[in-house]
Every structure is written in C-alpha cells, then in structure tokens.
C-alpha cells in the first residue's frame, strides 16, 4: 500500500516524464549541433588544405612536399608521386603556371579555390605539346587578356576562377628511381608567378 502511494506521489510531480523530456530535448539539441558543426566546419577549419598551403610560406611559388609532414602538416600521400604546391591570389593580376617539358613520364596539375573545390585540372596528355602553361584569372582579367593576346600565348590554357584565392597542386609520377632527377628538375623549374601581361604588350 505504501509502495503504491509513493508511486502515485511520483506520478503526481511527473519527475520521470520531466527527465524523459530533458533527454529528448538533449537529443534534439545534439542533432542540431551535429548539423551546425558539419555545415560550418569548412568555414572555420584551420586544418584544411588551403590554410596548410598558406602556412608553407609566401605565395606565388611552388613548395616541394617531403615524405615527413612539414611544419604546415603537408606531406606526400603516395610514395611514388612527387608533389609541389603553390598558393596564389589573383585579385590584382592573373597567375601563370608553367613548367618546361623535360621528359617526365607523367605530370598532372589540379587548381583549387580557397574552399578546396576543384576549378581546373590538366595532365601531360591533355595539354599542348606536353608542356604545362596555364593562366588562372578572374573573368574580367581574362577578357582583357584575350583582347590583346601577347605573342607566344597560343598554347596557353586560360582558366577562369570565380574566387580570387586558391592553390595549385603539381604532381609527377616516379615510375622508377632513375627518373627522380628528371622529375626533381621538372618540379624545381615549375613557376607559379603573377602574370604581368600589360608590360609585355607595350610597343
């Protein structure tokens, strides 16, 4: 009888119901928080690829990646693929990515914006004469460039980017140890420089 009485008193102030309600509220909050973190993480992440490449050093030059993670936390992700990365900012001038064709078995270039979305990619077979020559610029810059295309630009690939900041990743495949010197030379000679085309078209 006393047990029944205590049970009734418990029901009267709905403690268990309140705890259940608190747990349910917590679960709804957890689901909301989960979605908020997943959707907002790309905006505030300090570990994303672009932030790491910025941390490599000054922009507009290629940095070779080693086997061990460097201070920016970047490293080669395949023992047989050599990599270089370069960050650029095209708000003032376009950036020109070049590398001489020195007979490497394979190279490929990926251009990404600051949120790591792919803008453009090319490899040695899809380029003209197996030579890397790409200019990345805003639509306005490229329209002006096309209007007065300087000499020697007929083979250049013009890539429009909507964002002004981004990065490029240049890869080369080491088929055998004997091609390592050729690949090192190819990656070391690759440039990622701001493109000063107005000074070149002066007559």
């Amino acid at each position: 009888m006393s047990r029944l009485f205590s049970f009734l008193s418990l029901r009267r102030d709905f403690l268990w119901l309140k705890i259940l309600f608190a747990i349910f509220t917590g679960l709804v909050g957890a689901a909301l928080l989960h979605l908020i973190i997943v959707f907002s993480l790309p905006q505030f992440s300090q570990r994303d690829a672009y932030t790491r490449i910025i941390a490599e050093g000054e922009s507009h030059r290629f940095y070779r990646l080693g086997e061990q993670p460097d201070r920016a936390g970047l490293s080669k992700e395949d023992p047989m693929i050599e990599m270089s990365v370069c960050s650029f900012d095209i708000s003032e001038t376009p950036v020109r990515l070049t590398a001489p064709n020195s007979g490497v078995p394979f190279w490929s270039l990926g251009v990404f914006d600051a949120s790591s979305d792919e803008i453009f990619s090319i490899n040695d077979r899809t380029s003209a004469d197996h030579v890397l020559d790409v200019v990345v610029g805003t639509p306005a810059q490229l329209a002006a460039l096309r209007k007065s295309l300087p000499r020697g630009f007929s083979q250049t690939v013009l890539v429009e980017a909507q964002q002004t900041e981004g990065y490029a990743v240049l890869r080369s495949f080491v088929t055998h140890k004997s091609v390592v010197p050729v690949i090192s030379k190819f990656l070391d000679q690759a440039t990622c420089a701001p493109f000063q085309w107005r000074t070149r078209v002066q007559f």
Partner: protein
Amino acid sequence: MFRVPFLVAIALAIAFGGGIWSTRLALDATIGFGAIKLGSWEAFPEAQTADADPYAKSHRANAGKLLYATAEGLSFTATTDDSGARLSGSCTYQLTGQTPTARFWTLFATGPDGRPPAADADLPSSLNSRMVGRQPDGSLDITIASRARPGNWLASPQQGQFRLTLTLLDTPAAGSSGLIDLSMPAIRRIGCGNV
C-alpha cells in the same frame, strides 16, 4: 528544489556531448556520401568538387589532404578483403584481376598510423604498373604478405591492420561516378600465420 537545474544540465550534457561525439564519429568514419564501391575497394570521385556533399566538404576541411583532381587520377582504398574481414599484417593475400583503364597506377599498404611507406624502403612496400609482371592475359597477380614471396610481392606491415591504396592516374573512371562498368582486382585471403 534543484530539479530544474538538474534537468537543464541533463539536456545540455546530452546535447553537447552527443553532438560533438556524433560529429567526430561521422567525420572519422566516412569521407561522405557518393562513394563508388567495387568489391572491397572504395573511391570518392566527387569529394574534391563543389558538388561534394556537406559531409565530404567537412571531412576534407578537417583532414586537410590534397585530393586528386578529375584529370589527375582517382584513389581507391580497401580496408577489408573480399570476404569482408579486415586486412591483417599477419595474413597473406592475393590480388588478382584487372584495374579500370588508366595510364598508370600505384599500389601501397599503409599501416595503423596511416602514413604511406617510404619511397626508398628496403622492402617493396609500393608497386606501380611499370614494375609489375603480368599474366599472359594482361591481368594482375600480386601477393601481399609481410614475408618475401616469389613473383609480384607487395610487402605489408608486419603486424596490425593495414589499408591498401590503389591510385589510378589519368583514368576515365575519375569522371564516371559509377556510370561506366568498372572492375577492380579481387583481394583473396590465402592464409594466416606461417603459410
């Protein structure tokens, strides 16, 4: 008297604890939706594009990896053999069959720490399409073991679970999203221990 603060504390603890725990779990466990699965191989051809789903974008922002763009290649990973058992360094596996069309491919095993093997390692811990001998019909037959094997041998880590990464370079599979009929090599367990 302390009932209301107690209830609020329960709700907040579950919300923050559960929210952070589930997010960490989701970002560690998956690279997002949109995987193409071929046997035990898995690849994410759209993870680096603007069309990637929010989980894929969140994962890549957190992991900070440099992903292969479409014209560069496509990376397949496998953590299990064809029967679904985790790949273990104490077992021997046989990799047979064809890869999807690609100009080159590379194959290596990563240990529990997730770091790829060194390029100048003493053991053949990474292979590529140029250095592998083929069967008369052009298909692959690679033995994956921690001890030396005749024929094509890929050295796996001595102990613990490992993961295989097969990267196709310059492949139409990167733009396919599963529309082309692709086939990947089968991973069959030969035996465990000293076999």
